[in-house]
Structures are given as C-alpha cells and as structure tokens.
C-alpha cells in the first residue's frame, strides 16, 4: 500500500492562520520518509492529516492499493508522549488496540505474545507504565503499534521525550526492526541526526505556512549508516543550512504573536 498526499493545504479558523500549503508527497512500501522543519511549521499537523485525525482545508490523502489483508489498523501512530493508559498494564495497553476487533481472546493473546517478543518486552507483560522508564514506555507503544499490523506507521517525534542515551538505543532498535520487517513510516522529527540515520528520504518543510522546500534522498542502506560517517555528516550539514534561517525566523515569529 502506498500513501499519496495531493495538494494538502491547511489553515485554522477559516482562512486565518495558514499552517500548510500545497504539500505533495508520496511514500512507497518499505520506505521511511522523514519530515523535518522548524517548530510550528505544521509537521505534526500534517501527520495528523495523513492518519485521518484531522481534515485538511484543501487537498486529499490518497491510499493507493489495499492494505495487507491481516492489517487491523492500516495507519497507526506512535506518539511523542507514548500515550499509554496508566491504569492498564503493558499487556492491557496492547490489548486496547485489539479489543474492538472481532478476534478471539486466544488470537489476541498470541498477538500480544508475538509483539512483546519482537520488542523484547516479554518479561514486562504485567507491569504498569509508571514502573517503566521512558525508553521502555516508548517500546511498549511500538509493540502496540506492531500488534495491529500497520501498513504505514506515523511516528510523531517518537524519540524526542527521551534522554540522549535512551534515544540512541531506541534508534538502533528501530533500525534493526526496519531491517527485519521493512515497515513503512512517516517519521516526524526536529532532530537532524535522527532524520539522516532513519530516513530513506527526508522532506524539509519551510516555516509557516509549511511548504516542502526540498526532498533529500539518502542511498546508504539503514544498517550501514554509522554515526560518524562523513556522508551522513554532509547530509546533516546540508539540512542544517536549509533550516537555520527558517528556524531563526520561526523563532522570532513566535515571539511576535
């Protein structure tokens, strides 16, 4: 299944503040597309529009082809703040995503076993979120997303709420997961290092109203991108040059609102 964005524009308060303007973008199966841009450029809004949580003022998000038949929730989010229910255990949190589907209790348990194993969480099955560290919480959220067999994952700054060491570990986990399962994802971030490590393509958005300034392609396979490779450094430098002035201007803009 592919996702194609056609001329997405969005403004709040009926033609007031324009957040996004004429975004055209598509994603292939098995590809990670990173969306980066200065704060307030509407990248999270765009992600909400892609997943159908918000309606764009103009344009459409098209689904090309059908999701795999076993997919319970083709477009699945991973949120920055994990969004785990504090009153449910790890198991219960994953179960929430499955309970409204007509699969039996046995099947549900099998799925939970499977995703917990895939995210190395098996021993934390009965634990409440408050007992887990931030990195583990996000891992639970990833397990929950995997449980519904998504066709496209929509990741909204999934590592931004974590400290830098945990971020590094989880990023390695994500890379490993991609190499094993070739998942498809839109990955919103403001961290350039994350973008060059994880993205097959990186779409750079300008400040409000968000437009696509440039799309960068990185050929190196994910598993061969090391932190200190000069190629990634060059890409990161280029991205920073694109963003620097935008970020500065966006900063001033917010101060003037």
């Amino acid at each position, binding site marked *: 299944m592919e996702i194609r964005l056609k001329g997405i524009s969005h403004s709040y308060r009926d033609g007031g503040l324009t957040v996004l303007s004429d975004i055209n973008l598509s994603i292939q199966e098995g590809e990670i597309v990173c969306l980066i841009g200065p704060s307030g450029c509407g990248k999270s809004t765009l992600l909400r529009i892609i*997943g159908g*949580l918000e309606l764009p003022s103009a344009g459409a998000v098209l689904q090309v082809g059908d999701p795999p038949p076993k997919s*319970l*929730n083709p*477009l*699945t*989010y991973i*949120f920055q*703040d994990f*969004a785990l*229910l*504090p*009153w*449910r255990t790890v198991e219960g949190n994953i179960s*929430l*995503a499955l*309970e*409204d589907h007509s699969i039996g209790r046995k099947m549900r348990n099998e799925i939970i076993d499977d995703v917990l194993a895939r995210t190395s969480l098996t021993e934390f099955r009965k634990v*409440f979120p*408050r007992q887990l560290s931030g990195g583990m919480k996000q891992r639970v959220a990833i397990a*929950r997303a995997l449980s*519904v067999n998504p066709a496209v994952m929509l990741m909204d700054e999934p590592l931004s709420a974590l400290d830098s060491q945990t971020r590094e570990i989880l990023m390695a986990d994500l890379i490993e997961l991609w190499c094993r399962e070739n998942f498809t994802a839109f990955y919103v971030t403001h961290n350039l290092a994350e973008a060059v490590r994880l993205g097959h393509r990186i779409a750079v958005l300008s400040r409000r109203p968000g437009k696509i300034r440039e799309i960068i392609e990185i050929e190196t396979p994910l598993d061969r991108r090391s932190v200190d490779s000069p190629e990634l450094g060059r890409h990161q430098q280029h991205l920073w040059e694109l963003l620097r002035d935008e970020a500065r201007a966006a900063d001033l803009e917010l101060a003037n609102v």
Partner: protein
Amino acid sequence: MSDATVVLNAPAEKPVRFRGGGFRTKPLGIISPIVFVVVIGLWELGSQSGLIDKLILPAPSEALQALLELIETGNLWKHLGASLQRLIVGWTAGTILGIGMGLAIGLFSYVRAGAQPLVSAIFPIPKIALLPLFIIWFGIGEGSKIATILFGTFFPTVIATYGGVDNVDRTLIRMAQSFGVSWSSIVRKIIIPGAMPAIHSGLRISIAIAIVLMVAAEMIGAEFGVGAYILLAGSLVATDQLIAGVALLSALGLIIAWLIGKAESYLLRWRT
C-alpha cells in the same frame, strides 16, 4: 601569583552551610494515639476534680457509660440502623445519579449547555433549606430524609465527575481514535478510568455532606436515628448521651473514610 603567597594566604576552608531541610513532614505514627489519650485523660481529670462542670461537659467515662447503656438496651442498633439505612440509600442513589449526570455533561455538548447552569444554580443552596419542601412532597417519613441526602450528594458528585472527564488526557483519547477504538470503548476504557481520581475526591466530600444532612434531617421529625437521639438528649440536658451520640457520628465518619480509602487504594492502584 607565586607558590609562596598561596601557602601564606591560603584561604580558610569551611563547609558550605546546609540550607535545605524543613518543610517536609515525616510520619510519626505514635503521636496520634498519644494525643488522643492525653486529651481524653485531661478531660476526665478535669471532670473528676470538679474543674469542669459535669452539667456542661460530662466526663468521658460518663459518655462511655451512656454508650454502653445504649448498647445494652439494644437502642444503638435501632438508631444506628435507621441512620445507616438513610445514609446508604440516599448517598448511593445520589452518587450513581450524580456520576451519570456528570458523565453526560462531560460527554455531550447539549447536555452541558442545558444542565450546567442548572447545576450551578442549585449547587450552592443549602439542601437542608429544601427539607420542608421535601416533607411536603415525600412525607415526613423516610422519603424526605433520603431525598435530602440524595440531593446533597448529587451535585458535588456531578461537579467532580464532569471536572474529571474534562481533565482526562486528550492525547489518550486521540490515541484511541487513531487505533479505531469505538466511542463506547473510549468512554468505558479511557474516560471513566481517567475521571476516577476526581470522582473519588468527590465521594470523600459527598459522604461528609451526606452525614451532615442525615443528622440535620433526623433532627426534624424522626423517631429513630443518631440525629434524633442527639436532639432528644439535648432537650433532656442529658449531656452524657449527647456526647455519646456525637462520638458515634465521629466513628461513623472515620469508618466510612477508611472504607473509601481502601476502595481507592484498590481501584486507583495504578497511581503513584
């Protein structure tokens, strides 16, 4: 600066003064029983020595005597039973209706627009002022007393519940929507558990209100009930019985608070 001068003018070393601390209570379990014993002991001593007029304030031992008498004659269960029945029926009904109404206000814009002003208008009325009206409507018997308690607990519960619903983390709701979770599942699995802490603090307040209203209602036309017992003791200037009745109310309040605490630590065990 040369080495020599450093040695000569070596700055004095002293530890940095500790400025933290304070403002932090620590649990001292033994203090509370001691305070109890000391207060009651002083009171008893004062009464025995004649420092406190027994007519104005009877000795704790006399109040205890009155309580034992109450148990022996079997009147305790008559009074306490009548009170508890009113309290349980009125408070349970008020709580269930209140939670239902609170959820409706929290979930549906039309209900909120329609009912919220009504709730705000009726909430501040001391419900005991409505008792005469309830007596006309529901009779002098149990009906009017239960209605007073029900009314008194309904409004704080409504306000606590919809406040709790309003404060449920929106990101959790958006998460559930993104997984295609149905509306009724979101209400049952996210909104109600999320509002639970607020509902619980509402229950603590409403049970206190319910006890106050129960006593007040029983003081106006009731044969049995702790309130009626206290009123009768007062009109007979039987201060020992009066104190016994008040102690009974205190014990009732403490036991209920303890029960709610137990329920809370079970239902809200996911917290802290």
